[in-house]
């Protein structure tokens, strides 16, 4: 498959949640344009209510846009499918299956033979560092390990892109950092399209090769930044040094300024209501 084929294109997409009455309709997204090329790591950042989860749900096919269209490799997205893996905020693994069964579950749904299921799941578990936990039950793992199974599971179906909805929101700071680094290594190794949502500016800057900043009311993309902190990490390997470097800090403050501006606007509106 060529890179051209795998391109994801969001073309002038809007989504309006219908309210009970016509004047209660909420415009979650308005006129969003976005193109993700193969091998890109796109991070969406924004204050709550800016429509970033809505955008991810549209890409996953869990929702349909009210206007515009989304295509992957030239094919219009009409529903969820195995070409787009999803990692959720809460792990959403199946507690009656052990680690390797969870990882191979998608292949089972696609009637892939047992030996191949095992082989591919083993490979992806090794990729997230869980090669020694094949037979553990999900509820015996820590939160960080559960999310790593979630990533391995989403990769095992070999999707063109991986969609992640704040997968580290529930993890502690230390685990978060180590999984950020792991995720970059997985990205480098698989070279798939990654679409990642977060509300942590530092995480967004560290992970993304492109950062889109979204604003609420109506949800839209207001700023786009090309970044290379992730490549720097993959080259040099010292995450702390990158996160404390002057250009990283300067970037962080700029983006915090944008987001805080949005937050203040939202709270003003709420007070006027």
């Amino acid at each position: 498959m060529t890179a051209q084929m795998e391109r994801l294109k969001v073309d002038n997409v809007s989504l309006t949640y219908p309210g009970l009455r016509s004047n209660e309709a909420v415009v979650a997204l308005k006129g969003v344009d976005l193109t993700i090329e193969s091998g890109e790591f796109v991070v969406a950042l924004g204050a709550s209510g800016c429509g970033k989860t809505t955008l991810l749900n549209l890409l996953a096919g869990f929702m349909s846009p009210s206007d515009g269209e989304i295509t992957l490799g030239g094919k219009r997205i009409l529903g969820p499918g195995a070409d787009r893996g999803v990692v959720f905020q809460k792990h959403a693994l199946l507690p009656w299956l052990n680690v390797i069964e969870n990882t191979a579950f998608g292949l089972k749904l696609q009637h892939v033979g047992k030996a191949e299921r095992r082989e591919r799941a083993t490979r992806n578990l090794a990729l997230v560092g869980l090669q020694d936990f094949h037979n553990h039950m999900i509820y015996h793992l820590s939160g960080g390990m559960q999310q790593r199974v979630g990533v391995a599971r989403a990769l095992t179906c070999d999707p063109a892109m991986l969609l992640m909805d704040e997968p580290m929101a529930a993890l502690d700071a230390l685990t978060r950092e180590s999984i950020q680094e792991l995720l970059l290594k997985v990205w480098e190794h698989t070279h798939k399209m990654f679409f990642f949502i977060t509300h942590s500016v530092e995480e967004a800057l560290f992970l993304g090769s492109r950062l889109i900043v979204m604003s609420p009311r109506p949800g839209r993309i207001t700023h786009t930044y090309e970044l290379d902190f992730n490549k720097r990490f993959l080259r040099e390997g010292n995450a702390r040094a990158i996160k404390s470097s002057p250009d990283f800090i300067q970037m962080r403050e700029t983006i915090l300024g944008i987001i805080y501006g949005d937050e203040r606007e939202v709270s003003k509106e709420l007070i006027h209501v």
Partner: protein
Amino acid sequence: MSSFALSLVPKAKAARAGKVYGAPGDGYSGHISIITALVLFGAWFLVTEAGWVKPLFLPSPIAVYHKFIVAATDGVANSTLWEHTSASLTRVFGAFFLACLTAIPIGIWMGVSRIGRGLFDPIIEFYRPLPPLAYLPLVIIWLGIGEFPKIFLIFLAIFAPMAIAARSGVKSVSIEQIHAAYAMGGTQGQIIRHVILKAALPEIFTGMRIGIGVGWTTLVAAEMIAADRGLGFMVLNAAQFLASDTVIMGIIVIGVFAFAFDLLIRYLERLLIPWKGKI
């Protein structure tokens, strides 16, 4: 003032090592239950042996035991105790398995489909609170007095709680688990079979426990339908002759079988659903 208020607060003991401080009702209670049973049995023995209560109202444990031996060897009401018991077990378990085969799929269907829910909700919710004795005459008129109407009456009683449990079990699956399966290329049928049904298992088991319990309580009503054998029939028959020792003996036998089966389901639950309550 403040010292008075403080004196009303029960003095809490420090938690033992490895225990959680202040968790209400914490700890093992089995030995207390055994003492309760022994005390009740002792009181029964005492009041009957001392002659404080007439045997007609409460026969002594020894009399009940003798009745048990007689029933097991010579039989009461034209059958041995084992014949009564096997007749009742066949009815209760026949109804139970019939209910498992129908109520679980229908309950799941009610959970996943608005058509299923719309079809069965009014039927189940209407007949569920009715006492079985109220529709017993209809069952006899429609189905006669053979073996099937007895099983059917018990089946009706088990069906409703089991279907309701399976239906609410469907709700214990999270939308993320369903979305994850769709995003791995699952079809709707696969998701119902591999995700929803599994997620509903803990509640299905609870429904089975409630269902079999309700089944036992309906046994006597079912054996009012021209039975000549069965534990319920044996008790009803004994009541007509004021044979309270047979009544108590029958009650104990029903209780022992019901309790034993409940323990078996609980054991299977631990074996088959180790993830229950852990996620």
